[in-house]
Structures are given as structure tokens and as C-alpha cells.
């Protein structure tokens, strides 16, 4: 087969529908990555326009431009849009577009999940923007502190848009994080061990793991606050056994890691682009990987530094002050590794390099002011002033926007297959750089002079007039610069000449293909033997196009790839991808309906929407079944691999593990909340305790014990060729009994609207019930698969997945029952 013929055949197999219809049914990471990035930049423009409005308002004292109500909405939406709708999705989009190419495979692990995540993001983001257009946008600041954001002080629907819209968007972040984690661990080119992985993949892996453990506390906080607002469960109301500080803990348990979730991908871009710009290799690969991991962990021990002024004990201050200064070390390690890389190589001042230099200057200043505010007495002075806003922009703009601009200019030829030819970019960089520093250096100064953040007006006597004017002028220079970058990019996309392949002479795999990338990504998969494959084999692209790698022969219209052992990169299984489908967009629309009906208080739609989600999920997994035992699959080079339906740990198992990691964090945060309220909140002990029932407890725990044991038996029987159906049904019933015990707990929770104790039990019971239903549904699904002949001793991949969920449900369910009944007995 000639290269061209192979290209045609593969394109026919992998292509999305043509025209705009393709947007709705595509599951291809090339399309979805671009759609993510495009949407994220639309939100960046919206957020940027809001920033301009802020600076217009603050340019003069006693400004009459916007009243306080509108101003509150503007800065809240600016922060929210930038953090949730621009920064995180940009990372997701970049990772979705790049990872399969960097890793030498054809797509991500779960293509339909990618699409689902995108549509959740698009719909959730749109909800927030629509609210803003109608003037009912959230206005409680991007961290939504209660009691300000509780029903008493924010009676309108504004705060609900934040809580529900952001939760909807977070679903997309969790989906993308599961996707990225499994893809990096399992979907790589043969031979690409962890050691040989491109550095960006390490960063993406660490970031995705952080999303999985960082976002659940915020989702929990949002759920609890929404429950308080909608149904009066007083989690954050101090007079009813709640505590508004609980929100601050949950929010910053998310919020601080969030800062690193934003910074780490940007650092990944720098570690990828910088060596190419310096014509050398990255110095200290191992050090950088270790530093990224250390940073990820340490960042989870810092959250209280956002609460230094809430009157926590001195020991807490000292604790978190110490931890906050410590993170400077791994950050410093990375910075020094980059400086060393520049030292070692011969830096060339291309456009991406300029933005990297902009990053260095800005981020280092932001890091230094960060160490300043980690020192408690200084923070007591600077807290909630413009100094903090200036600091956070140095970190976010310096640590994210500059690197992303560098990345855009670096990968633009890859996106378009063209080369840059206008020199507008250099001028734009100069404007962005100087505009940024004028704006925010001035804001440090205003903050030190006492200007608080989030104020819509100030008096001439305050003495901040000139500084604010300078800052506003700077922000307009910045805006012009960003507009020029956009124009530059558009000119490039529409007018530039075609470029040769790999214009930067980079050594990573994404350049070993035609650009713009074809739908199938690689015509055949490379065998990787070094960290810089293209440096070793400059002709790799041609070899792969000729089909000399793995899976070079298109067959039967199948979308094929292979998965590897996570540590060694040894090929492990043969994977088939699903075809184009509208299921993801429909599913996320129904998910959106669920959230929207909660928001608008159309409660009768809620169960309908939930049922819709269940039906669609059923359809989603049903299409994965195989009627007959698959043979070993030839993947080329005389290698035969088992089909993913016949392995113990299929991709779905890995996906479940990481989804349950996120879920477990959510549960742990819920238990933390319970313990926190019990020990710290005023208004405890509650007036009435839960009446414990030995019978309910025993029954529920028995169900929890039996279900996983029965699943294990089902797995064993199935493997031995015996009928597993009965054991699966036992497992299903065990989960159902556990669910009934949790439902009883919910029904008997003492007066949930009168004290946070009862509300917490209600939520705990609800969590147990919800999971018991999921486990029972999964058991039912498996039983049907068995009945209809979709499983066999060989086709066994579904069993361990269901077993995993059942086990999770049992563990959490038993803890819930014990926590509730024991609390009743102790009293």
C-alpha cells in the first residue's frame, strides 16, 4: 500500500462528519482539542473585556461608570471566567490536542468522554454568560464566601448561577482529568517507558491527578451551599450548628491547588519549548519531574494561608506559613533547571522565546511577593488590598498567560501547517509586556497605600488617583497588545504560506506527521527508544507514513490503537475506538437540563433528567459489548495482542480507578466537614441526636460485606467457565440492601433544616443511597450482558469494573452507616 492510499483509507475511517454537523458528533481529539482552545479563548476575550470595565471604573475617583451592584458582578465574573472558563479549559484543550501526538498514539483513552466534557464546559459556561447578559450574574466575588453568599444575604438567583454553573463546568474538568490520566499511563507508543515520556506528559499527568483530588472539595462545597440556599440545610449558618469557615476550608482546599493546576501545564509548555528555542535538551529532566510532583503535593498543605486573617490559632498560622515558604523550593528547582537549559544551549530570540522571557521576569516577581504574603504579619497588612490582586496577576498572568502565548506561537505551525511571516507578534509582545507591568506594578503600590480590593469607588483624598490612572492606562496598552496577538494569529491562519514539516527542528513526536494533523494522527505507530525520537530518526515522519510502524494496515473500517504497560511501555492490548456519535452532546444537554431545572427550581423535571442520564449512560456502555470471543489481534511487526475486552484491567477499569479517586476525595472532604462542624462549629451539640438502630446498621453492613464478596465469586466463576449470573444478582441485592439502610438514615435524620448535624446525616445518607443505586444499576447491566451472551470466560473485562464500583460503594456505605449510628450511640 502506498503512503497516499493509506492516508485516504485511514482518513475515511477516522474522519468526522463534514461541515458544522461534524462538531456535534465528533469524538476526535484533533477536533475537540481545537474546539476547547477556541472556546477557552472566547472566554478569555470576555474575561479581558470585563477586566477593561474594571479598570475603567477604577481609573477615576467617585466613578459613575458602574454602580456597586454591577461592579460586584463585573469583578466576580472576571475572576470566575478567567479561572474556570479560561485557564483550566485551556490546559484541557492543549492536553487533549497534544497528548496523543506527543505520546505517539492515535487518540485519547475515551473519545466520547472528551466530547462529553467539552459540551458540559460549553453549556455550563454559556449559562454563566447568559446570566451576565441578563444582569443576574453572581456577585459574591470569585470565592463566594458565605454568609455573604447565603440565602439571607444574597436572596437573588445570582449565587445559584455560580454554584450550579461552576459545578457543571467542573464535571468537564473531572472528565478531562480522568481522560488525561489514563491516556498518559496507558496510551503511548510501544517502547515509551515512563523514563522516555516527553516532559509535557509528566506535567499533564501531575496536573490531571491534582484536578482529581483538588476539585472535589469545591464541588462538595458548592453542593452544600446550594442545598443550604435551596432547601435551608444550615451547613454554613453559625446559629444552627453550621460554620461559614467550613466553606473557606473547602474552597481553599481546592483554591490553592488550583493555582498550581494552572501553573504546572504552563511549566510543561516551557519545559517543552525552551530547549527547542535554545537548541539543546532539557537540563535535569529527573529534577523537573520530581519538582513537579513535590509541588503538587505541597500545594495541598497550603490552603489555610488564605485564611490568615480569620482568627485561627497561632499554631495554624505557623504551620501554614512554614508550608507556604516551602513551596518556593520546588518552584525554584524548576526555574534553575530552565536557566541552566538556557546556559547550556544557544538561545534564539524567536517569538515563543520572547514570551518565555516575559514569563521569567513576571513569574519570579510574583513568586517573591508570594513569599512576602506567606509571612503572616505582612499578610495581616496586605490582606484584601490591591497588593494581593497585583500579586495574583503576576502569578497567573506571568505563570500562565505568557507561557500559553509562547505555546500558541510554538504550535501554531502545527495547527495550521503554515509559517509565521508578519512581524506583528514582536510588537504585540512588547505592548503586552509593558502594559502588564505598568498595570500591576501600580496596583502593588496602591495596595500598600491602603486601597482595598473589590471597591467600586474611592475618594480623591485617599491619594490613589494618579496611581489608578496609570494602572488603567497600562491595562489599555495591555489590551491593545492582546488584540494584536489575536490579529496576528488570524492573519497567520488565513494568509501565511505553507511551511515545511517541523519548522523548529524539534525532537518530539508531534512533529512526525503531516500538518495540520490528519484525523488518524499517525499512519502507523512508532517504536520509541529515546526521549527525543526525532533527533535520532529525522526521517521518522516518512517511515511512519509508509506504514512501517505498528498498526500500519487499515482494516475493516476499524479505529484501532494499542495500549501499553504503564511503567515499561511494553504493548499490552489492542483497543478499538467508538465511531462518531451524538450521544455525548445529548448526554451533556440532559445533564444541563438537570442542573438548569435545579437552578430555576423546576424540581419536577429533576427526576426526569436523571432518568434520561441513566438511559443514555446505559446506551453508552451497551455499544461496547462483543458477541463472540475475539482472537489475538495482529498489530504489525509480528506482534499479536489480546483485545481489550479480554483483559483483567481494561481501559474502563483504569478510568474507574481515577474517577473513584476523585469520588473518594469528595467523600473524604464530606467526612472532614462532619468532623469540622462537630469539633469547631459553635452551636454543638445538636438539640436531638440520631436514634441509632442496631437492626438497620447490621442489615446495611451485612449488605456492604456480601456485595463485594459475591462479586469476587462471580469473577472467579466466570473465569472458570461457570455461570456467574447468580453471584452477580446476589451482589446487586447486597448493594440494594445497603441502599435501603442509607435511605432509612435519610428518612430518620433528625430535623435537617434545624441543625447542621441532621443536614450532614441527610447528605451522608444521600451519598450512600446514590452510590448504592449506581452499583445496583451496574450489577443489573452486567446481569443483562451475561444473559444476552456478551460475556464469557474470555470476555471478562466488565466484571472487575463492576466489582470495583461495588467495593467502593460498600466501603463508603459502611463508613456512612457507622458514622451516623455511632454518633447517635455516643451521645
Amino acid at each position, binding site marked *: 500500500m502506498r503512503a497516499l492510499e493509506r492516508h485516504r483509507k485511514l482518513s475515511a475511517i477516522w474522519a468526522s462528519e463534514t461541515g458544522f454537523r461534524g462538531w456535534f458528533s465528533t469524538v476526535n481529539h484533533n477536533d475537540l482539542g481545537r474546539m476547547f482552545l477556541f472556546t477557552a479563548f472566547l472566554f478569555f476575550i470576555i474575561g479581558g473585556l470585563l477586566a477593561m470595565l474594571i479598570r475603567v471604573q477604577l481609573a477615576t475617583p467617585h466613578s459613575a461608570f458602574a454602580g456597586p451592584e454591577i461592579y460586584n458582578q463585573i469583578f466576580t465574573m472576571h475572576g470566575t471566567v478567567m479561572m474556570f472558563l479560561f485557564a483550566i479549559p485551556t490546559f484541557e484543550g492543549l492536553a487533549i490536542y497534544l497528548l496523543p501526538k506527543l505520546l505517539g498514539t492515535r487518540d485519547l483513552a475515551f473519545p466520547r468522554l472528551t466530547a462529553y466534557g467539552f459540551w458540559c464546559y460549553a453549556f455550563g459556561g454559556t449559562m454563566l454568560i447568559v446570566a451576565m447578559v441578563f444582569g443576574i450574574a453572581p456577585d459574591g466575588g470569585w470565592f463566594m464566601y458565605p454568609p455573604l453568599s447565603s440565602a439571607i444575604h444574597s436572596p437573588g438567583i445570582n449565587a445559584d448561577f455560580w454554584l450550579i454553573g461552576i459545578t457543571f463546568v467542573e464535571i468537564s474538568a473531572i472528565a478531562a482529568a480522568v481522560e488525561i490520566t489514563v491516556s498518559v499511563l496507558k496510551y503511548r507508543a510501544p517502547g515509551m517507558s515512563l523514563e522516555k515520556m516527553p516532559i509535557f506528559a509528566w506535567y499533564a499527568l501531575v496536573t490531571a491527578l491534582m484536578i482529581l483530588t483538588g476539585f472535589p472539595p469545591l464541588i462538595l462545597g458548592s453542593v452544600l451551599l446550594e442545598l443550604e440556599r435551596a432547601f435551608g440545610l444550615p451547613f454554613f449558618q453559625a446559629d444552627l450548628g453550621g460554620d461559614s469557615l467550613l466553606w473557606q476550608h473547602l474552597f481553599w482546599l481546592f483554591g490553592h491547588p488550583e493555582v498550581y493546576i494552572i501553573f504546572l501545564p504552563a511549566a510543561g509548555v516551557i519545559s517543552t519549548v525552551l530547549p527547542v528555542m535554545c537548541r539543546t535538551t532539557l537540563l535535569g*529532566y529527573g529534577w523537573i519531574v520530581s519538582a513537579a*510532583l513535590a509541588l503538587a503535593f*505541597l500545594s495541598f498543605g497550603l490552603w489555610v494561608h488564605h485564611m490568615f486573617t480569620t482568627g485561627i490559632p497561632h499554631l495554624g498560622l505557623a504551620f501554614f506559613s512554614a508550608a507556604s515558604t516551602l513551596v518556593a523550593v520546588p518552584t525554584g528547582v524548576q526555574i534553575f533547571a530552565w536557566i541552566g537549559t538556557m546556559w547550556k544551549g544557544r538561545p534564539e530570540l524567536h517569538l515563543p522565546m520572547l514570551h518565555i522571557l516575559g514569563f521569567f521576569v513576571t513569574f519570579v516577581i510574583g513568586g517573591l511577593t508570594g513569599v512576602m504574603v506567606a509571612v503572616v504579619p505582612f499578610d495581616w497588612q496586605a490582606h484584601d488590598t490591591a497588593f494581593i490582586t497585583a500579586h495574583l496577576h503576576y502569578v497567573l498572568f506571568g505563570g500562565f498567560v505568557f507561557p500559553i502565548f509562547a505555546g500558541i506561537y510554538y504550535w501554531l505551525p502545527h495547527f495550521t501547517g503554515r509559517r509565521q511571516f508578519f512581524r506583528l507578534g514582536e510588537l504585540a509582545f512588547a505592548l503586552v509586556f509593558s502594559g502588564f507591568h505598568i498595570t500591576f506594578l501600580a496596583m502593588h503600590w496602591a495596595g500598600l497605600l491602603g486601597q482595598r480590593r473589590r471597591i467600586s469607588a474611592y475618594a480623591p483624598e485617599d491619594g490613589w488617583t494618579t496611581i489608578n490612572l496609570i494602572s488603567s492606562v497600562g491595562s489599555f496598552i495591555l489590551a491593545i497588545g492582546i488584540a494584536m496577538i489575536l490579529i496576528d494569529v488570524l492573519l497567520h491562519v488565513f494568509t501565511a504560506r505553507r511551511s515545511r514539516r517541523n519548522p523548529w527542528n524539534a525532537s518530539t513526536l508531534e512533529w512526525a506527521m503531516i500538518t495540520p494533523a490528519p484525523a488518524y494522527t499517525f499512519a502507523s505507530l512508532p517504536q520509541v527508544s529515546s526521549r527525543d525520537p526525532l533527533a535520532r530518526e529525522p526521517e521518522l515522519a516518512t517511515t511512519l507514513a509508509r506504514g512501517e510502524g505498528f498498526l500500519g494496515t487499515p482494516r475493516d473500517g476499524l479505529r484501532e490503537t494499542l495500549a501499553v504497560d504503564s511503567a515499561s511501555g511494553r504493548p499490552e492490548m489492542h483497543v478499538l475506538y467508538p465511531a462518531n456519535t451524538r450521544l455525548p452532546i445529548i448526554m451533556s444537554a440532559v445533564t444541563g437540563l438537570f442542573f438548569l431545572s435545579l437552578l430555576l427550581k423546576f424540581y419536577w423535571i429533576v427526576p426526569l433528567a436523571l432518568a434520561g442520564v441513566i438511559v443514555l449512560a446505559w446506551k453508552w456502555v451497551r455499544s461496547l459489548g462483543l458477541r463472540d470471543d475475539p482472537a489475538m489481534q495482529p498489530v504489525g511487526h509480528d506482534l499479536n495482542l489480546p483485545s481489550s475486552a479480554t483483559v483483567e484491567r481494561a481501559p474502563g477499569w483504569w478510568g474507574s480507578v481515577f474517577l473513584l479517586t476523585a469520588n473518594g476525595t469528595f467523600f473524604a472532604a464530606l467526612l472532614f466537614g462532619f468532623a469540622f462542624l462537630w*469539633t469547631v462549629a459553635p452551636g454543638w451539640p445538636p438539640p436531638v441526636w440520631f436514634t441509632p438502630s442496631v437492626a438497620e446498621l447490621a442489615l446495611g453492613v451485612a449488605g456492604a460485606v456480601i456485595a463485594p464478596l459475591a462479586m469476587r465469586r462471580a469473577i472467579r466463576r466466570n473465569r472458570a467457565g461457570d455461570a456467574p449470573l447468580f453471584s452477580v444478582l446476589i451482589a446487586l441485592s447486597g448493594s440494594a440492601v445497603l441502599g435501603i439502610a442509607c435511605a432509612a438514615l435519610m428518612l430518620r435524620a433528625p430535623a435537617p433544616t434545624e441543625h447542621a448535624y441532621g443536614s450532614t446525616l441527610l447528605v451522608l445518607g444521600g451519598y450512600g443511597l446514590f452510590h448504592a443505586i449506581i452499583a445496583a444499576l451496574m450489577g443489573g447491566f452486567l446481569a443483562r450482558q451475561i444473559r444476552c451472551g456478551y460475556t464469557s470466560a474470555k470476555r471478562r473485562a466488565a466484571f472487575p469494573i463492576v466489582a470495583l464500583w461495588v467495593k467502593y460503594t460498600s466501603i463508603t456505605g459502611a463508613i456512612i452507616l457507622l458514622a451516623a449510628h455511632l454518633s447517635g450511640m455516643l451521645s
Partner: protein
Amino acid sequence: MTEIFRILIAPLVWFVSFSAIYGLHGVLCETGPGAFEGWPVQRVVLISPVLLAIALQVVNLWMLYQPRFTAPAGLLRFVSRAGGWTGLVATVWTLFPVVALSACT
């Protein structure tokens, strides 16, 4: 999985001990008389888990240098030892305040 476990264990233990000791301090302050001057029971209760946490980190690091437990040579060995050192340094540095000042105010 073992490779990943080896890398993550030390920082994970640090995070658990850090949060647990912070929580323990909160509980002691809620239930006890308040200030702990000198060496009252509470102080001992608070400082012993710190020593335990440090000991765990030392043992882990020691194991990472033993041929029997260490990762295969190369990147994974380097990164897991770096993780071990991170855990130890973070434990000593961030829990030190407990020894220096364990007041409730």
C-alpha cells in the same frame, strides 16, 4: 503501580500526618483547658505523632536506598528518592511549629 506507589508514598504520608496533626491540635484545643505551658499531657499527645511522622519518613527513605526495596535504576529511582527526601524535609519543616509553640490562641 508499585513504581508509582514508591514515588507517591512519602509525600502522601506527609500530607496525612500534616492534616491529622493540625486536626488533632484543633481537637485538643476544643476539648482541653486551652493554653499548654510546660509539658502537660496535651503537649506530649501532640508532639509524639510528630516524632512518629518523622520516624516513618526516615524509615521510608532508608528503604528507598536499600537494594531490596529500591526502584529500578534510572529515572524512577531518582524520582522516588527525591519524593522520599521531599516527604522528610516537608515533615520536619512544616511540623516544627508544633514543637516550638503549641498554644491554642
